[in-house]
Every structure is written in structure tokens, then in C-alpha cells.
């Protein structure tokens, strides 16, 4: 299969869906002439025109609010928030408007829109351009939250999100935009709300999100040499969550680790650990270990930043702990 970069896979999904449905429009900061800060919308305004690929003022609340209103009245907007950190500027629109329109109206309104944004540290961008805030939105009923882990998944999940009639927020790890991988050239749509088993194994279940899937897979490769077999589960959609696949895996392996780049407390990894506790407590041979970013504002200096990001070494250390070796 042909291999392309994650950012190209995102662009391909946007291109295909805009071709397929004239109601799909894009709006965001610097997405037209520049093609997006991460090149995910490169050249799309030349294909579809400036009416459908819209550079906005630097107004995150208005970007999301306008997308909500447009979605309520016949368009299928894809709004981009350049850095995940900037969703904080638009929280009312995301949490009080987008997420609740359908419920508050007793099902009379629908909000078919997608928000694309980023997570992840590792670029020396310091504390306001590096956070992983996906848990903030996964906490809110009424939003589907997606964290793809590969170029192919990015394409398949984004296409599914655009076709879905509910608000979907997709967090891409910005460190993966240049990651290359096989991506189907055809109309490739993956299901929302399903975990993907990225590697089958028998000794320890590692629930890993976004780029942390690759850390888990790297750890699995290294541990295989020692005869330890990891099963790597990628939830892909954090909300609503396919708990069954996770629980079934832990029932098989009896040991579990959770790794997510968000902060370690009150976050995604805490939730995954609770799901495992509730669903497979009697099957566990060791306490669940969760691995997250250092619980600090993200530092600028690589000397501090890189150790603050979870990695394969952390997974291996945790595996040894849950296996009592």
C-alpha cells in the first residue's frame, strides 16, 4: 500500500469529503493561504475556493460558535483550532453550546460538525502550545472525542467524523503529522466508538492513546525479545468509549497499564484505569498502572520537556511492575 504522512492523510480525508458533500466547509486560523500551521489543509482553498475554505480572524470562540450555528442550519463545518491549548478560548462554545444543543432541545436540533485540533509535547513550544487537553472534552456528554494514532486511522476516523451527525472533536498529536504510514487510497471510513487492537498479546494489556500507541508498540517489540507479550489496545474514540474490548483484553491478560499523554490525574488514564477496575477487577493479578505526562506545566527546555513525556521505557518499567519481575 502507498505510504503517506499523517498530515497528508488528514488532507486527503478533507479533500475527499469536500468533493463528496458540498455542505462540508472548513474554517479556522491560517487554513487557506498558509494551508494550516501543520499543512493539513494545504492547497484546499485552490481546489474548493475561499468560500468553502475560510481563513478566520484569530477568534476561537467565534470559530466554534459560528460552526455550531452553521451546523444547526444545513452546513457540515470542520473547524480547526490550531493548537489544542487554544480550546480554552472557546470552552463556552464547545461545552455549553455545541455539546448541549441536541439534548436541551429535546432532539429537535442537531450539530453535525467536526473540530480538529492538536495535543502533544516535544517541539520546545513551552507550556501554552504543548498540552494534551482531550480529557477536558471527553468529560462532557454530547461530544464524541477521537484521538487517531496512525495516518490510516486519521483518514478513516476523520471521514467518519465528517459524515456523523453529532459533534466530533479530533485531537491529532502534532508530533505525528510527519509520521509516515500505509493509507488506503480508496474511500476509507473507520467506525467511531470502537477500540482498535494494535497488537495481540497474552501477558499484559497496554491501553494506549494517540502517539502513545507507538511507545507501547516499541515497548512490545523490545519485551518480545525477553519473551513478554503485550497486547496494545488503542481506544481511538475516547467518548463514547468501547469499554468491552478493553475489559475483554484484561480478562485475558490479567494485567493492565494505561498510557496517555494527558496529565496523570483526573484524566483519560484515570478513566481507563477505572473502567478496568470496574469491569475486570476479579481478573487482575496486579494493580493497574497509569502513565501520563509529568504533572507540571510543560517546560520549554528539551532537557526538561523530553523527560516529561511518557515513553517506551516507562511502559517497560510498568510492565515489570505488574508482572512482579
Amino acid at each position: 500500500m502507498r505510504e503517506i504522512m499523517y498530515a497528508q492523510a488528514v488532507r486527503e480525508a478533507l479533500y475527499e469529503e469536500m468533493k463528496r458533500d458540498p455542505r462540508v466547509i472548513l474554517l479556522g486560523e491560517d487554513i487557506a493561504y498558509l494551508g494550516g500551521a501543520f499543512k493539513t489543509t494545504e492547497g484546499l482553498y485552490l481546489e474548493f475556493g475561499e468560500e468553502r475554505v475560510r481563513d478566520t480572524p484569530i477568534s476561537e470562540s467565534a470559530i466554534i460558535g459560528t460552526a455550531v450555528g452553521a451546523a444547526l442550519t444545513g452546513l457540515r463545518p470542520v473547524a480547526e483550532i490550531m493548537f489544542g491549548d487554544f480550546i480554552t478560548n472557546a470552552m463556552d462554545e464547545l461545552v455549553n453550546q455545541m455539546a448541549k444543543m441536541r439534548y436541551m432541545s429535546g432532539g429537535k436540533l442537531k450539530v453535525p460538525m467536526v473540530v480538529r485540533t492538536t495535543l502533544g509535547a516535544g517541539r520546545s513550544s513551552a507550556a501554552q502550545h504543548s498540552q494534551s487537553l482531550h480529557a477536558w472534552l471527553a468529560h462532557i456528554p454530547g461530544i464524541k472525542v477521537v484521538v487517531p494514532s496512525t495516518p490510516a486511522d486519521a483518514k478513516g476516523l476523520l471521514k467518519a467524523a465528517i459524515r456523523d451527525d453529532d459533534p466530533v472533536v479530533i485531537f491529532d498529536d502534532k508530533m505525528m503529522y510527519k509520521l509516515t504510514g500505509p493509507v488506503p487510497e480508496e474511500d476509507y471510513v473507520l467506525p467511531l466508538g470502537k477500540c482498535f487492537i494494535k497488537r495481540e498479546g497474552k501477558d499484559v494489556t497496554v491501553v494506549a492513546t494517540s502517539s502513545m500507541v507507538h511507545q507501547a508498540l516499541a515497548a512490545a517489540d523490545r519485551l518480545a525479545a525477553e519473551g513478554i507479550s503485550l497486547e496494545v489496545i488503542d481506544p481511538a474514540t475516547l467518548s463514547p468509549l468501547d469499554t468491552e474490548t478493553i475489559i475483554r483484553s484484561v480478562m485475558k491478560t490479567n494485567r493492565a497499564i494505561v498510557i496517555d499523554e494527558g496529565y496523570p490525574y483526573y484524566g483519560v488514564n484515570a478513566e481507563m484505569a477505572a473502567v478496568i477496575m470496574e469491569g475486570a477487577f476479579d481478573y487482575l493479578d496486579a494493580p493497574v498502572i497509569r502513565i501520563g505526562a509529568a504533572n507540571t506545566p510543560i517546560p520549554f527546555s528539551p532537557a526538561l520537556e523530553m523527560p516529561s513525556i511518557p515513553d517506551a521505557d516507562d511502559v517497560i518499567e510498568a510492565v515489570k511492575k505488574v508482572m512482579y519481575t
Partner: protein
Amino acid sequence: MIKLSQERSIELYRQMLTIRYFEEGVWKVYANSWMPGLAHLYIGEEAVAVGVCAALQPQDTITSTHRGHGHCIAKGGKPNIMMAELMGKANGYCKGKGGSMHIADPALGILGANGIVGGGFGIATGAGLSAKLLGEDRVSVCFFGDGAANEGIFHEAINLAAVWRLPVVYVCENNFYGMTVAQNRAMLLECIADRAVAYGIPGRTVDGNDVLAVMEATAEAVGRARRGEGPTLLECQTYRWGGHHVGDPGTSYRTAEEVNAWKARCPIKRYRKYLVESGRLSEEEADAIEKQVQQEIEEAIEFGRNSPFPPLEELYTDIFVNPIPGSRQ
């Protein structure tokens, strides 16, 4: 002045009365504990909702506010279905899931009242964007209060609509108080419409207690919008007779003299006087309409009281259009 047929001009009177008696009915419903929660009454401001909506077409949309009953009635909302919603009943506009602050009905062009101050700015702007991109002859109206004019989204949304020339009319109902804080304690401007200059769009301040003046100013703004000339900031100066909500007497931050001065400028009495003096309506006919409206509201209250509460299963419905089978909700 705007020219209306006799029938149309009487209809505006009926709508204002419907809002007035609806709100008095809500007060009674609240005082008798027939509804849960609170409500924000529109008494005194009726000419704004009615005057604005009189200048709209059925396909035009509105976003409303926490003080939204008047907007819904003026856009075609039925008092009985609204009353059922306020009481949290299953056959209310939102199955009882939204209540007083969240009435929505896309069939009437009501994109939702909103419990967040300024919550309608983004939505109304987006409705303008869809009208423009889909080529639909549809204008979007955003009702908001003087308090909302100090929210950040006021600036972001109006600026965006201006730069994209969207068919939106931003209607500020300036009742001079953001909850309890007077306008002159929250901004230095006297006319909120003056802020239009900052966005390069027209701004206009009108007497919000004069239904025909409101209608005329709205028609001008709507005309601009329909012609593709972009948004307008329209300020309608008015006054809420009561407190911020049914539980607030509204006396700790306003003087009785001020309240009484505004009551003397009642938009409904004033319009009735105009209708009678211009020979459009006799006193007897006006009284008869008033009785009909009172009766309709009494029936609406009964309808609400006799309606069932939603079944418990409704707790988990309407979160998504497409719930995902097998995944945890």
C-alpha cells in the same frame, strides 16, 4: 412611518398582549409552585420581540436569551407548548429537557434560547454563514442584552460577521441592567450601538418601547442583510419591569421612581392608544382581544399542568443523533 394593514397592526397588538399575559401567567405558575426552577420575565420589553419579528419572514432564524419567552411567542411559539416546557413536561417544545431558558424549534426558526449570556452570538453568526453559502434567502437575528455586550464573543462574532458580510442583525435589548449592575457601572458608552463603528458596520439606537419604530429599524437592517450588505447592530432601549428573575424583586438596585417612570411608558398601552386613535381598533375590540388572550393563557397553563412528565428513559436519549451501539454512554 412603516405602513401596516389593519389586520397586521392588530396582530402586533395581540402578540404583545400574549407575551404580557404569558409572563403574568408564568409568575402565577411560579408562585403556585407549578413549575420547577426559575424564569426571567419579559414584561415591559414586549415591543422589541414583536417589532423585530414583525420584520422577519418565516424562514428567518433567531437566537434568543435567558429572557426569551417573548422572542419565542413573537416568532410563532405556541403558549401552551411553551408553558408545558416551563413546567418540565413531556409535550413541551424540548420534551421538558430544556425548560424556560432553552426553548428551541427549528421549524419556527428558533435556534434556541440560551442560558449563557452571549450564547447566541456564535450560533446566529453561523446561521448567517450557512444562509450565505447555501444561497438561501434567510436572515439571522441575534437577540442579546446590554450585559451580553460586555462578553468577549460579542466582539468576536460581530467582527467575523462584518468581515464576511453575513446576513445577521444583532439586536441589543438594552434594559439598562446586566442582572443588577446598571449599564453606567459596566460601560462608559451611553449607546451600545455606537460600538458598531468598531466593526465598520451600521449601528442604530431606537426607542424599544415603540413597536413600530423597532419594526421599521429592523426592516432596514434586514433589508441590508438580504441584499448581501452585511450585519447591523440595532439597539432597542427598553426596561424590564420586574427583577432579573421571578425570585428577584428588583428593588435593591433600582429606585421606585425609575421603575414607575418606565411603567408609564408601557409599550402595549402606547400602541393600543395609537391603534384606537388612528381608527384601526375600537376600545371594545381591544378589550375583546385582551379577553381572548387572557383565556388562551389560562388554557395554556391548564395544558401544561395536565401534561405528563417525561418518562425516566428520556434521561439518556437525545445526547447523540447516532449513539454508538456497544459503547458506553
